[in-house]
Each structure stands twice: as structure tokens, then as C-alpha cells.
């Protein structure tokens, strides 16, 4: 009996579920695809916070051209095929007007070539693979977040200033880690041909948990500078283990390309070493503009934390859509796309320009040196170095984009 009920419930649930298709008039629907489950779900949560905040702000001040924002989240689970199916679901089943999202480069690279079939604009807010606005670029896809090329160009500029010549890396053993090192190395070589890049860099497997062998190896190799592209939980593990082994007291400079991410600084607290160069896609204290101050204050009030870069990216994307739609005075996908090209958007991370040639935003890079400050529960950046987007963004020719 129980079994019958169970199965009938499941069947009924499925039947009802698939026929539900409520589309309220007078709303603009945004579909967002992020990592919502598993080890990296914190990034999806951040993005959700950003969208929620932006949507509520916009809705309470009249919406976009009078339409309220409604958003639907889907889980990419970090797998490209899941992300692609989620995008189809958002467009065909949920009837969304606009798409945004993507944390993982792998998902982005898989999904981007499929977006033209869906015929909706898509703003990427996190995934950093250069190819997405490079060799794989297309009319529908935009990115407003810092990509690998931009961030590593900033890192290379710092490395040049530091003046040390012998560099190695510790990065996760997947495409992001390898690409970060390639880009960093190439930029640095251009800036300073005398630089020597390690022939035997360290790529611990992703989610390795134990970085001790790599820490020991780098210490014993005695480089002059170490470029670290680990991120998230890996970076936290790495820093704690490195602290124990005196890694940060060695005679080499350390650059962490994603070291100023708030989820890392929050977890580590005073375990985060001071005096280290760290980068991030957005730093909450980097811009003293009304847009940023309002965002940080509203975010802190609502979620009790300093906003993460991923919240900022999602927040900015919603506003980018708003700006574009108001410029286009239309909800037609093609018109929105046209409006997004060459659009200047005022975001918490500063003004950014979405280039028409490759749809990559020319966006500032944020770096700084970690410092303890008793007014903050986390390490902050002092001094902060902001690299203007135009100085660190490769030209459209360099990015390899061929729009149609």
C-alpha cells in the first residue's frame, strides 16, 4: 500500500511539475546557472546573494522599463553537460529572457558554443577562461568579470616591480592552473626578458587536501618568487600547511592570484599571513564610489558579511542588463545584445566597458598587500593596487576572437 502511494505520489509530482508553466506578464525573467551543490556551492550562494540584492533594489525602484525582475537559478554541478541542459531548461521551459552565470571554465567553454542556438544574451560573471571571449566568442556571450589574461597581466606587472627573476608556481592541476602559469610566464617574459621560469613547476591535483610535498619542494628549490593560483578550499589548506612549514618566512616573494577572495580570508582569519601580494576580481574597499559604498552597505546589512567577488559579479550583471535594456528601450534579445556592445556600466568594481569586438569587459584588476587591521575580522588589503582595465586587457586581436 505504502509502495503504491509512493509511486503514485512520484508520478503525480512529475506530471504536475512538467505542466506547470506560470509566466507572469510584466516581468523580465533572468535565468542564472551557478554551482549550487557540492564542494564549491559557496560560490553559487554568493552569486545568488548578488542577484537577489540587485533584483530587489531594481524592483523596489520601478523595475526595468516598468517590468519587475524575476530570477530562476539552476545548478551547473560543475559539469559542462549539466550546465548546457540547464541552459536549455531555462530558455525553453522557464522561458527566461536573459541568461547569466557560470563559475567553472569547463562549463563555460562547453556552454558558450551552444548559446547561439538558445538565442538569448548570456553574461558570464565568474568563469575565467580567456577562450570564452577569445577563440570561442560569439554574438550572444558577454563577460563582465576579470579573466585569466587580465588577472595574470596585473600579476606580471607586480612581479616586474618586485624585481626578482627566478619564478615558479603552485597551481591546481587542471586547465585553470596551467593556463594561469602560461599567461603569467608569457607576460612576465615580455616585460622582463631576463626572467627565468621554473622548468619544474608544482601542480598538485585539484582538491588535494595535502600540499606538504609541494610546499617542501618549493622551499627546497629556492626560487625568488612564487606565483600561486590555488583558490577556495585548496588555498585555505595550502596557506595553513604553508604557515606550519614556514613557507612565508622564506626568502621569496609570493603572489596569490586569487588570495584576496573573501571566503578564503574569512575562513582563515588571522591565519592569513601578512605582507603577501594577493589578487581578486573585486575588493570591497577598492572603490570609494556611491555605487560601491551602497552595494557594500546593503550587502552587509542583508547577509552580514563583506561581499565576495562572485556576489559583485552577479550583482553587476543584473545592472548591466538593466542599463542595456534601458539603452535599447526594448526587451528584444538582438537589441539588448546591440546595446550591451560598447556599453559602459557603473559597477561596484568601478566603471567597466563591454567591448564590442570580443564582448569582454575592460575591467579593473584588484591587487594589494595583506595586512591586519583591528577594525576588520579579516585581513584587508593595504596598500590596494588597482590596475585600470585598459592596462591589463589584451586587445581583441590578441584575444583571438573572430565575431562571425
Amino acid at each position, binding site marked *: 500500500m505504502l509502495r503504491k502511494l509512493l509511486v503514485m505520489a512520484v508520478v503525480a509530482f512529475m506530471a504536475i511539475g512538467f505542466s506547470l508553466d506560470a509566466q507572469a506578464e510584466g516581468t523580465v525573467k533572468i535565468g542564472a546557472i551557478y554551482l549550487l551543490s*557540492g*564542494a564549491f556551492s*559557496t560560490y553559487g550562494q554568493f552569486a545568488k546573494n548578488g542577484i537577489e540584492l540587485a533584483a530587489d533594489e531594481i524592483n523596489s525602484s520601478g523595475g526595468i522599463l516598468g517590468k519587475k525582475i524575476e530570477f530562476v537559478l539552476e545548478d551547473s554541478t560543475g559539469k559542462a553537460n549539466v550546465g548546457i541542459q540547464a541552459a536549455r531548461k531555462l530558455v525553453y521551459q522557464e522561458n527566461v529572457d536573459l541568461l547569466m552565470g557560470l563559475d567553472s571554465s569547463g562549463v563555460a567553454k562547453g556552454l558558450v558554443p551552444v548559446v547561439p542556438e538558445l538565442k538569448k544574451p548570456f553574461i558570464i560573471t565568474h568563469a575565467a577562461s580567456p577562450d570564452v571571449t577569445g577563440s570561442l566568442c560569439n554574438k550572444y556571450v558577454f563577460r563582465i568579470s576579470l579573466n585569466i589574461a587580465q588577472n595574470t597581466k596585473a600579476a606580471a606587472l607586480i612581479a616586474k616591480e618586485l624585481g626578482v627573476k627566478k619564478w615558479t608556481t603552485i597551481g591546481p592541476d587542471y586547465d585553470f592552473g596551467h593556463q594561469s602559469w602560461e599567461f603569467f610566464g608569457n607576460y612576465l617574459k615580455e616585460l622582463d626578458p631576463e626572467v627565468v621560469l621554473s622548468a619544474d613547476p608544482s601542480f598538485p591535483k585539484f*582538491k*588535494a587536501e*595535502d600540499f606538504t*610535498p609541494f610546499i*617542501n619542494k618549493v622551499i627546497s628549490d629556492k626560487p625568488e618568487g612564487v606565483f600561486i593560483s590555488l583558490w577556495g578550499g585548496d588555498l585555505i589548506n595550502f596557506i595553513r600547511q604553508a604557515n606550519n612549514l614556514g613557507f612565508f618566512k622564506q626568502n621569496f616573494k609570493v603572489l596569490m592570484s586569487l588570495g584576496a577572495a573573501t571566503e578564503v580570508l574569512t575562513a582563515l582569519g588571522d591565519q592569513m599571513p601578512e605582507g603577501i601580494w594577493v589578487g581578486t576580481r573585486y575588493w570591497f574597499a577598492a572603490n570609494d564610489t556611491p555605487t560601491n559604498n551602497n552595494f557594500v552597505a546593503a550587502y552587509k546589512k542583508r547577509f552580514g558579511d563583506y561581499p565576495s567577488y562572485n556576489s559583485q559579479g552577479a550583482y553587476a550583471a543584473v545592472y548591466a542588463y538593466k542599463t542595456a535594456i534601458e539603452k535599447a528601450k526594448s526587451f528584444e534579445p538582438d537589441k539588448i545584445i546591440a546595446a550591451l556592445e560598447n556599453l559602459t556600466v557603473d559597477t561596484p568594481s568601478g566603471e567597466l566597458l563591454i567591448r564590442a569586438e570580443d564582448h569582454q569587459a575592460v575591467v579593473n584588476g584588484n591587487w594589494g598587500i595583506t595586512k591586519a587591521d583591528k577594525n576588520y575580522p579579516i585581513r584587508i588589503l593595504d596598500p590596494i593596487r588597482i590596475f585600470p582595465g585598459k592596462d591589463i586587457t589584451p586587445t581583441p586581436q590578441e584575444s583571438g576572437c573572430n565575431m562571425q
Partner: protein
Amino acid sequence: MNLMTAFVAALLNSFDIGILLFIIASGLTIVFGVLGILNFAHGALYMAGAYFLLTLMGTVGMPFWVGVLIAPLGVALLAVLIERFLLRRIYHRHPSFGLLLTFALLLIIDDAVRLIWGSGYHIVEPPQLLRGAASLFGVTYPLYSFFTIGMGILIGIAVWLIFHRTRIGKTVRAAALDPEMAQAVGINVPIVLTVVFGFGAWLAALGGALAAPMRTLGPAMGDTIIIESFIVVVIGGLGSFPGALFGALILGGIHGFGGRWLAEWNIVLPYIGMALVLLWRPEGLMGRR
């Protein structure tokens, strides 16, 4: 650093990783040996141990030493309920149902932890006494790691003594060898199974609590551990307790030395190791046919 110190560092690293794996995998192998269930949710219980400790130390404000004792007991209690109300219903079915049921538990516990503690990262501070590093043969190594190695050895000896030198141990082994016979001579087999599952979970959670000061706490942190534990028990011999030690040290060695000298192969070395053992001695290095 010369080759010698690099070697010692890798060796220490192997023990550090291996002993922790041993604590966790021994729970898995004991549960398999007695209940015949390969517990997919074992890694989730490891995670629960770490998060329980986080709350006991953070919200409740217990010192590490108390928390590390209590957190695993809490998880063991949870496991007892799982055994009593869920697992018990499927012992008579094909082993694949055990795998499926514990997989469902993995999904539930993973998400429940995320709902309760959030999706962000957390760390647990080691106790004051164990902060910093010590030097051994010219190698600097975290003090806390020496502590986990010591704890692992103590736990190993204690568990071995329980199984081989006490009445309880004999009862459990009898129940594992022939449940019907054991029942006939007056052993309450269902209770034995409950206790053993709780004990296995206790070991997993203890591993989690001990790992907490070394590892980042985050969602799904048990997912890598569970596969590593499978590899350990297969290399050592399914159901063999000494095998779990042996297998854990081998896998620790693979990580310690492979991580140092064969890093780009690191994602596959454990599997190559497991395949070689299975082809050479399918029953595992210490297992019985």
C-alpha cells in the same frame, strides 16, 4: 634541502596522510567485515565528525580535547539510528542495495550539512599545545601531524586489543563469521550489528575530528575521503583490520612520495596501485580468500 631530508619529509608526509586514512578506513573495513555492507556514506560521517567538532568548539565553546571526544560519539549515535531504522531492513537483499541505500544517505547527509552549517569554508584551530612545528632529522614538520600519527597508532592498538583480547571482540567476530550459529549460542546478533555500525561511524567521525585542525571544512569534504578509503580497504583486504593499516600506509606513501616526485601522475597513482594489487592478489595484501 638535500635528497635525504626530502626523503624524510616525504616519509613523514606518508605517515601523516596514511595514519589518518587508517583511522577512517578501519571503520569502513570493520563494517564491511561484519555487516557485509560497503558504506558509501562513510565519508559523509567523516565530514559530520569534523562539523560536530566545529560547533562544539565554536558555538558551545568546548576546548579541543573535550570536543574531539564528544563529536565522534554524536556521529556514532546518529549511525546507530541509521542502522536501527534503515540499514537493518536490507541485510537480506543483494549487496548492491546496501551500496544504493548508503549512497542515498551520502546525498542526504552532504546536503544536510550544507543546510545547517552553510556552504562556506571553515577552519578549526589546533589546541595551543600542538601549534607550530617540530624538527626531525632536519625536517620541519607540523607538531599536530606528530600528534595524529601518535593517536592513530594508539587507536590501532586499542581496536586490535578490543577485537582479539576481549569478550566483546570475540562476540563480534563470531557474529561476523556465522550469524545463525552466533544467534543459536545466545548472541544477540542484531545488537552486535548496530554496535559495530556505530563503532565504524565513530572511527570515521574521529578521523574527521582529528583532521579538522589540518583540513578545510567545506561541503562534500568527505567525497574524496570515501574513494581513498575504498582504495585502502581493497589494497589491504576487504574486512581485514591489519590490512586497513597496511593499505593506508601504502596509499599514504603514494601521496607522500608520488606528490613529491610524480605530481602529474598523482590523480591516477592510487588507482594504478589498487589495480596492481587486485590483479596480483584479488583478496588484498592481508585479506583471506
